[in-house]
């Protein structure tokens, strides 16, 4: 069989063998001891020609109910939003997607400038002073923030709200176990926000960080200023995991006292793609800049005084500091940061506000519509952004199966993470949902719960 990614002809091989003074490729592998040489062919999936390959993967793709075949109301940390068509065209430029980390700045100015612009946009959205070039996702970014805070304050205890995304808390717990940091979780109130009295009781002088989400996992909007006060009183850093789309209408966390803002840029131009690749972001204060994990791009000048960009503050990083590095992160999510940058550019100053406002208005309309639907109850009365919680008279799993049959991807089953919230569904309504789709959801839900 011939392979289109392997250009070696028989003549090429002959010439190379001759230059090497060998008769077969096998002679280049004599350094591998016989007992570890693999004696047979790998038993893996078979190769497909390009035509069959397309057929095979198309068939697999077609097995999946998706946002083009179904109307989607699922969010819970990954959201279906408007993606301007320009985004994909720019991402598919091979100069971007086939490059690696910009180690050689003279031939990487494009990527470096794009990251510098990304860092600026993250700072603008979050109201923070500095940002890095990206993290793996919102969950790992938040966990790294907690570890950074524990290290900086020298207090190996962090307090996290139970209203933070359960997977963010799971990843935090895994990181914390590695670094012997204690994680304390505090509950939420009937209003669906962090229980401030419980929080105040849990935040001690030995607490390095307080972590909340904004909006939180239930879609409710936390009172950041009040939480900041609780954290600051005990000398803990305040970490806010934030949905960047919401920041088009919500006050920036930086204005409300956040020391570190983390989250995922996925809502800005990145397909949900079964959960990844997305794009963690990380922003903090100038004071904490040198403690930040990840790659950072800085502006400088070349020998002729011309503006240029370089990777900077590398003395924090694993390839220089090895076991003393601030993090082990090396590869990040640069291409997705570019997607987010292009999207924030396309939306621009006006578009991010308009899009955020549409999410707010449509989710509010949906909340009212479902509140008025027989058999459903909207719980938690805090202000929400584009997600809210509905109590059903039936298991969410069963309702979602019925919705799927009606061409709808239903909301998230909160009972999976919160036993006390069995039969509670978290519903996301973005700018992409029409009034007609929302009305249909209400009708279908009414019929399903009545049946």
């Amino acid at each position, binding site marked *: 069989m011939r392979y289109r990614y392997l250009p070696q002809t028989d003549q090429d091989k002959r010439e190379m063998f001759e230059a090497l003074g060998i008769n077969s490729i096998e002679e280049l592998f004599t350094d591998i001891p016989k007992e570890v040489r693999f004696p047979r062919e790998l038993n893996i999936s078979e190769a497909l020609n390009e035509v069959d390959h397309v057929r095979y993967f198309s068939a697999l793709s077609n097995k999946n109910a998706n946002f083009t075949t179904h109307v989607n109301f699922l969010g819970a940390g990954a959201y279906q939003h408007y993606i301007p068509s320009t985004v994909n065209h720019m991402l598919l430029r*091979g100069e971007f997607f086939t490059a690696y980390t910009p180690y050689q700045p003279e031939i990487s100015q494009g990527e470096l400038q794009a990251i510098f612009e990304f860092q600026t946009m993250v700072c603008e959205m979050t109201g923070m002073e500095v940002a890095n070039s990206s993290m793996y996702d919102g969950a790992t970014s938040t966990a790294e923030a907690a570890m950074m805070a524990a290290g900086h304050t020298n207090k190996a205890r962090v307090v996290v709200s139970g209203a933070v995304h359960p997977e963010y808390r799971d990843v935090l717990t895994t990181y914390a176990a590695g670094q012997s940091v204690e994680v304390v979780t505090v509950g939420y109130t009937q209003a669906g926000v962090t229980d401030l009295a419980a929080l105040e009781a849990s935040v001690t002088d030995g607490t390095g960080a307080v972590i909340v989400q904004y909006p939180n996992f239930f879609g409710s909007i936390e009172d950041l200023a009040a939480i900041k006060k609780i954290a600051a009183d005990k000398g803990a850093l305040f970490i806010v995991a934030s949905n960047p789309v919401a920041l088009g209408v919500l006050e920036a966390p930086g204005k409300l006292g956040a020391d570190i803002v983390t989250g995922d840029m996925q809502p800005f131009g990145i397909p949900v*793609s079964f959960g990844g690749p997305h794009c963690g972001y990380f922003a903090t204060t100038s004071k904490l800049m040198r403690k930040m994990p990840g790659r950072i791009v800085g502006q400088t000048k070349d020998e002729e005084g011309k503006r240029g960009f370089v990777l900077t503050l590398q003395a924090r990083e694993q390839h220089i500091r090895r076991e003393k590095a601030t993090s082990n992160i090396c590869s990040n999510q640069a291409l997705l940061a570019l997607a987010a940058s292009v999207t924030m550019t396309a939306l621009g*100053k006006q578009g991010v506000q308009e899009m955020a406002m549409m999410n707010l208005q449509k989710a509010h309309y949906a909340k009212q519509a479902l509140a008025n639907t027989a058999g459903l109850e909207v719980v938690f009365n805090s202000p929400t952004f584009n997600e809210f919680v509905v109590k059903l008279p039936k298991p969410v799993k069963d309702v979602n199966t019925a919705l799927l049959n009606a061409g709808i991807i239903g909301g998230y089953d909160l009972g999976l993470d919160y036993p006390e919230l069995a039969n509670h569904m978290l519903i996301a309504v973005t700018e992409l949902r029409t009034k007609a789709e929302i009305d249909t959801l209400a009708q279908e839900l009414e019929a399903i719960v009545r049946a």
Partner: protein
Amino acid sequence: MHKEKELIFEMSRPGRVAYNLPELDVPEVDVTSLLPQHLIRETPAELPEVSELQLVRHYTELSRRNHGVDNGFYPLGSCTMKYNPKINEDVARYAGFAHIHPYQPDESVQGALEVMYNLQQDLAEITGMDAVTLQPAAGAAGEWTGLMMIRAYHESRGEANRTKVIVPNSAHGTNPASATIAGLETITIPSNDRGLVDIEALRAAVGPDTAALMLTNPNTLGLFEEDIVEMAQIVHEAGGLLYYDGANANAILGIARPGDMGFDVVHLNLHKTFTGPHGGGGPGAGPVGVKEILIPFLPAPIVAQREDGSYYMDSERPQTIGRVKGFNGNFGILLRAYSYIRTMGADGLRKVSEYAVLNANYMMRRLATAYHLPYDVVCKHEFVLSGIRQKKQGVRTLDIAKRLLDFGYHPPTIYFPLIVEECLMIEPTETETKETLDEFIDVMLQIARECEETPEIVQEAPHTTVVKRLDEATAARKPILRYTKEV
């Protein structure tokens, strides 16, 4: 002289847009009735306001100021800068993959779960492991995941005192960094004069506190650790486990398997060996394979198959180290890797490694005529040269790298591994033609001549790029990390 490129913010004019959202089709409610005043944003974010054509020209111009594999040769050692197949990008954009949610019911995403399951199986076979998690987002995340499992394994056996991770001095920087964030301590051992792990140093380093040995094989010098079986025996007899850093797996596909060498844990860099792509720094994907003894500790969930052939997410893992990333890992990269495997098959993957090794040896042999070759033996998929001869002529390896830019090449990895002075680490990959290798070799030989005859040409390079050498010291001393509008 090349022009300075404007920032997108500097192109902004109030009133321009590059988006078009639908009209609001629900009754509009006053925002102050939905949000308390103190939570409503006071000052809008200063994002650019440009037209769609301006946007396209801006990012197109940025792309023209960037070098990728699509532009030309990119022999960046340890990074496996091979061709990134276009069909992988197509597949990743099919609606049934790009526009599905990780929390959809399992029965509605059987195609995606099948991709993950098959990839788990194929990677287990390729590495000689018993099970695989696809969750880690990159190589470093895979290392940390593997070390957390090793730690959990020792703790489960009442050996929490096993906290030392032995790492050769030629190892990637992520190895010791990952050990630290897994709560373990690094012991660095030297390499011998053949560039391999010093067996006696290893023997002296292991003991009742040994958690693991972390090893790249072939190592970062591109040399196969020939004593691997004995090394595995030494570590195992001491009660430790072996961790395989898969950054260099492009040399061994179908030729040798970490599992057969004695390794207990392995991560693969799908963005390297399995055509990722690299994306300007990411996304990666760092699946981790383990031997049976470590299966209970794998991150939850993993994809499993029922007797009826359907797939599901198995979250029932009581001894798991927990979750290491949100959702299902970097699914889009996993999908691309599986697409690549389905293009190459078993025969194709073995040829990948054979040709990667052939290309590397050919280049090494020809370049050794002008550059010092510190380890004059057969190499695997990459090799290192030293610029010490050129240094005597007043030219540093950094200068040679910058001179290569003038010829349209991305330079090799430089000054790594740390144990070779003035190091150049070259990995051609299998997807390059002999003509490309010959042209690059000719340029390297020309640069070697320049170092003798006209060293200033090399010392002052690059001459043709959009910017000249940049002042990195000032960038770090007085960091400017964002644009601020001048008022």
